[in-house]
């Protein structure tokens, strides 16, 4: 009942109220569960909602982003089908209402993205008119088109005009490829871009290692840093090549990489079958929701304030910025981030990397600046 009430008020903003049965159908779509749970009911509901036609669109938009991502796809596919059918039948669509929904930034980001997609499908001219106004939108994907317009505009300028236009675009850009393009052009114009600051890469760490990862067993082994973060402690590390015990201690390490990569090969040498840890403290100005975004081609785990966020034991299949997005809650003040990074036994040239890149940002990809 609560869920139904949650979806209802937004639907009432548009067109005539839907039948309660259709509202229930929208809810079925939004609340499908894991492993196909709710699929049968959703399948029936999907047909009912699509049959309802354009007047179901507001309710579908209002429900988007309030369930899970699979539910959002049920809703998106219903919207998409309704709009396709209406366009073929030359039926009117509530584009003004959908535009109003898009412009209300209190609505869910996924829902607003869907609203823009529907407008773009139904009326490309209207979408073209709306897009430049999305330059500071809280939804990363919605900004992209507006940023691209600024880049295109800047390319037509020279000297200080071009520089000013690229700097304007830099303020708005969140996507890596567009940022690279803008930074490249600014560099040609004599302006260096601080990419670690722009993206929010964490550069200053304490590191410790190497510990064992023979036969890749280190990934599931809880070495001492997972039990305590004590920067003055000393632990037994991986035995040396003669089989003798070693002692490992925490030491500070600062990345100088413009992509914020912490390369363990630099302090430890190009080792194989090893595990190391990096720890840093991030000061948050407030209690807030955030994302830790990691790029890594080694086995890894990430903890925030002692809580394991995620881990993955895949080696050397590739890395990229924001490869893994971990939603988290930062507390006001100091937050401890611990990263475990495992190197495996492979000896090919493309398996040398033993590194990661991590940043703290909000859901739009905007860097969160540490309070200290």
């Amino acid at each position, binding site marked *: 009942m609560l869920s139904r009430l949650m979806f209802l008020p937004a639907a009432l903003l548009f067109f005539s109220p839907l039948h309660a049965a259709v509202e229930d159908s929208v809810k079925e779509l939004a609340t*499908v569960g894991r492993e*196909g749970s709710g699929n049968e009911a959703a*399948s029936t509901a999907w047909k009912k909602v699509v049959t309802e036609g354009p007047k179901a669109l507001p309710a579908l938009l209002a429900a988007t982003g309030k369930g899970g991502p*699979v539910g959002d*796809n049920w809703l998106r*596919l219903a919207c998409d089908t309704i709009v396709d059918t209406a366009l073929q039948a030359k039926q009117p669509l509530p584009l003004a209402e959908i535009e109003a929904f898009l412009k209300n930034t209190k609505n869910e980001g996924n829902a607003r993205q869907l609203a823009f997609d529907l407008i773009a499908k139904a009326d490309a001219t209207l979408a073209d008119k709306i897009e430049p106004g999305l330059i500071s939108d809280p939804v990363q994907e919605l900004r992209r088109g507006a940023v691209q317009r600024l880049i295109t505009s800047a390319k037509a300028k020279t000297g200080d005009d071009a520089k000013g236009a690229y700097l304007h675009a830099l303020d708005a850009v969140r*996507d890596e490829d567009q940022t690279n393009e803008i930074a490249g052009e600014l560099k040609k114009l004599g302006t260096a871009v601080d990419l670690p600051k722009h993206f929010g890469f964490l550069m200053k760490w304490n590191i410790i290692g190497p510990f064992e990862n023979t036969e890749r067993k280190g990934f599931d082994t809880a070495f001492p840093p997972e039990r305590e973060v004590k920067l003055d402690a000393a632990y037994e590390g991986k035995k040396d090549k003669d089989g003798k015990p070693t002692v490992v201690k925490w030491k500070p390490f600062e990345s100088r990489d413009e992509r914020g990569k912490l390369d363990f090969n630099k302090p430890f040498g190009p080792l194989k079958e090893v595990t190391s840890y990096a720890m840093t403290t991030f000061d948050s100005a407030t209690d807030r929701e955030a994302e830790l975004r990691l790029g890594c081609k080694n086995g890894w785990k990430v903890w925030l304030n002692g809580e394991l966020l995620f881990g993955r034991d*895949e080696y050397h299949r*590739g890395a990229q910025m924001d*490869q893994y997005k971990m939603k988290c809650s930062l507390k006001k003040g100091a937050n401890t981030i611990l990263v475990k990074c495992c190197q495996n036994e492979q000896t090919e040239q493309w398996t040398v990397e033993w590194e990661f890149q991590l940043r703290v940002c909000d859901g739009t990809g905007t860097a969160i600046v540490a309070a200290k």
Partner: protein
Amino acid sequence: MKRLLALTLAALPFPLAAADWPQFRGPDSTGTVADATIPAKPKIDWTAPLPGRGLASPIIIGEKVFVTCSSGPKQERLHVFCFNFADGKKIWERELKATGRTMSHQKTSIAACTPCSDGKRVFALWSSNDLAAFDLDGNLLWLRGLTVDYPNVSNSLGMASSPIVIGETLVTVIENDSESYTVGIDVKTGRNLWKLDRPKAANWSSPVPWRADAKSPAIAVLQSSKGLTGVDPASGSVLWNYAEGASTSSSSVVAQGVIYAPSNGITALTPQANGSAPEQVWRSKQVNPATISPVVLNGKIFAFNSAGVLSTADIKSGDSKWKLRLTGPFSGSPVGANGRLVAVNEKGLVQIVDVTAPEGVALGQLQLPLKEGSKELVLSTPALSGEHVFIRADSALWRLSE
């Protein structure tokens, strides 16, 4: 006439018609279909534009051709297109957003897994492990986000295994270095019938159906770096294992009850009814399919290496026959019918081979008009239906005929 026959058959209670090409490498994943005719000198009948990226093969059910794509800056937009068989006009299109990871090697794409059909439904799987079922008119039947369900199911190079339908089960291989499964999914509801733990290793090969003879029910043959596993598609029970390793890229092919596995070259295997390991009929390292799946035609097995050398062996003995150099490189697999093979290299050169000639003879060629000024490659495997060949690149789907 063959289409007419196919449509007549389609109206009967049998869900699949003779001219259908319902999954990767066609009916029973053999790369052949009995009633098809490959043109000696192909030309383009029609072109349907496609958005974004894709190397998934088209599939054909009745008068409809289905193909998947991915688009967007991170290929996060997933598309299913339905085109009219006769003229290539779009009948419907559906778009969803990836719920799993969309990272892949730049050469491949998120639309790498060929969709499949049971004749009533189309099942589309992407590298993000999003799985969607539609009826043939584009109505959504069910959805799964397999990385939502199992958060460590992904491959940073991209996933590519194509699902198959056996009976009421969609056999979906989502094997990778971390959380590695094959899942049997109910075609009607999208719920799991079973979930099998699989070797923790990246795997791009596709499952194939195997039956002892035409009257026997099919089982699913799963392939991995460890070897082959026979699985009851209804229950997920493991029936037998072959543990001598196999390719994680090219897939097996089945003909007349024998599995020709890309294992130590090609190994011909006959599964046993008693649960013991399949009996080895022959093994040949002379026929090495590299990353490309072999095909059986006219009593011979054919395999390309990536450089474009077509090698062949007798399917009974494994004895090597002739070799023929075509123009490579290849990523897509060849398919065959009426004594001919059709293979398309990465640069879009369609090449027809007459395999009935004593040493094999290259027949016609056709250069596909790839998108100008792009680095577009053809990485897909063709589909056959009637007198036509269907092939797709990123930017287009083409129908070819004589």
